[in-house]
């Protein structure tokens, strides 16, 4: 079985660093594998362990994204590909899915299974997986938390959303978006790191994928950001110091009592 796993490098938004002026301090923040993408890598490697599979991990991003590809090689992936071109910069989901789909069509057309993380913590759009599946005319399942092999051409797929659990028998090839995968991602072993150190990442740019300027980057993206701002509609309520705990508690309890009174309880 041939598996493609798409991963994205994201800033660690769980550990946001702020400047004194309340701005994001990007320079001090780490870049990591998008957490659910790492779960997708684990899902692929688990299939490799259980039934044997070739796992290729792919990331579209700047040269810096090689670090997350190396980490995936260290975890046990067989190959790693960087889709990298200055012309890719500024791609929205429409343009991004175009790049990813053309990689599959032109360089990996015999793929059996394509995995994505459900959403990226920096964008949270949940669109890239289903958008790429649409361009490849492949079926797609979201919120997959478990994959089991039934036989050579069929997988048993478990999905779980907020309110529903489902199990599917799905015939390859197809696309899956992984979320809350049941097994935590493995930690690379020493020989994994050695393999990753010596591994040379394959790189493709827009011409390698036969993509023109108007299909990618800012030019190929239908959406554009007209303005970015911090929300400023603050309430500017009363702020207490820890030394004023007593007074704070009094305010809180009064507020709660008023609400309870309104409710007639």
């Amino acid at each position, binding site marked *: 079985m041939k598996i493609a796993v798409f991963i994205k490098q994201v800033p660690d938004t769980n550990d946001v660093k702020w400047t004194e002026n309340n701005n994001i301090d990007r320079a001090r923040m780490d870049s990591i594998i998008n957490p659910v993408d790492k779960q997708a890598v684990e899902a692929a490697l688990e299939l490799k362990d259980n039934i044997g599979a070739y796992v290729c991990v792919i990331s579209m991003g700047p040269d810096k994204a090689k670090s997350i590809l190396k980490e995936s090689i260290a975890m046990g992936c067989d190959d790693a590909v960087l889709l990298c071109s200055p012309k890719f910069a500024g791609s929205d989901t429409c343009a991004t899915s175009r790049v990813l789909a053309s990689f599959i069509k032109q360089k990996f057309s015999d793929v059996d299974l394509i995995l994505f993380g459900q959403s990226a*913590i920096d964008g949270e759009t949940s669109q890239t997986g289903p958008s790429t599946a649409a361009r490849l005319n492949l079926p797609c399942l979201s919120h997959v938390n478990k994959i089991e092999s039934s036989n050579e051409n069929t997988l048993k797929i478990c999905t779980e959303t907020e309110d529903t659990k489902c199990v599917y028998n799905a015939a390859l090839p197809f696309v899956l978006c992984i979320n809350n995968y049941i097994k935590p991602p493995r930690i690379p072993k020493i020989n994994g790191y050695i393999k990753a150190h010596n591994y040379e990442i394959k790189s493709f740019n827009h011409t390698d994928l036969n993509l023109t300027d108007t299909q990618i980057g800012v030019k190929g993206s239908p959406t554009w950001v007209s303005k970015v701002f911090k929300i400023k509609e603050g309430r500017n309520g009363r702020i207490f110091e820890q030394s004023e705990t007593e007074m704070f508690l009094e305010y809180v309890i009064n507020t709660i009592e008023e609400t309870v009174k309104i409710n007639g309880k």
Partner: protein
Amino acid sequence: MENNNILIYTELTDEYGIKDVSLQLISKAFELKQKLNNSKIIACILGPDIDYSLIIRKLEELPVDDVIIASSSELSEYNYCYHPEVFTGIVKKYEPSIVLIGATVQGKEIASYCASKLETGLTADCTGLNITNEGCLLSTRPTFGGQLTADILCKTRPQMATVQENIFKIVPQPKHNVNIIYENIQTCCIENRLKKIFSEVKTSSSVDVTKADIIVAGGLGACKDNGFELIKKLAQKLNAAVAGSREAFEKGYITKSQQIGQTGKTVSPKIYIAIGISGANQHLTAIKNSGKIIAINKDVNAPIFEHSDIAIKGDLFEILPELINKIGN
């Protein structure tokens, strides 16, 4: 003349009612329509072969002009191999200027598929929609992990957006007649290789956070030691719902249905108590309609302070036990 029609994917519930998020989008579309010329509101329903009279009656009380119904046995249960293609076929045929879709599991898949096939722009999980002076859709959404908000425009047509539940309100209209159109669109793009062999609706035991008067919510700051035990104890005393930020969900302290934020629930309780929540933009947007916001946070630079009515810069592990004690009296 080019139309400025707004088409809304009108998603059905398991009991063949209309999902709230779709009703909310129809109401919002009416507001957008006032700023557009030559604009109609079209509700598009995909579903099984059933009697749609109850659903149509409901839509007659909302500002809908046309209802498009595509019904077939294939469409009785959502499937990526059918619904997105049928919906895309309808959008292609009626060429609306704007397409709005609830950011549900199927809504997101349908929107992504449709935008890809039509090579158009899609803005996901919007927290605001407006019309510019030029008559374009302006979608607002949190970005960069919710730390910032972005206004997004689209160069192509249709302009597509998905929106979470409870961002907008349902505004009923006087009953009127709607124009019903039945569509029959065949699918051929994707061979259905997905066979559902089991499905179970999860029953939730926790209080519904969207309906609670008081919510006690924990963030990253509470994700250690007995932080969430204290939160649960406080909630119990206040008869409140327990909720949390995305970090609290990711670390397993709450379930997805308790997650507040852009990708979780949007809430408007009478009192929202934010404990150890720094106040990422995507969280603030989801709680901004709350009556009173009370915050406890150690990080003096946390944005939550600007957005609170009562707040304390202090250690939750010291302050919460005192608060729990006081309420007991």
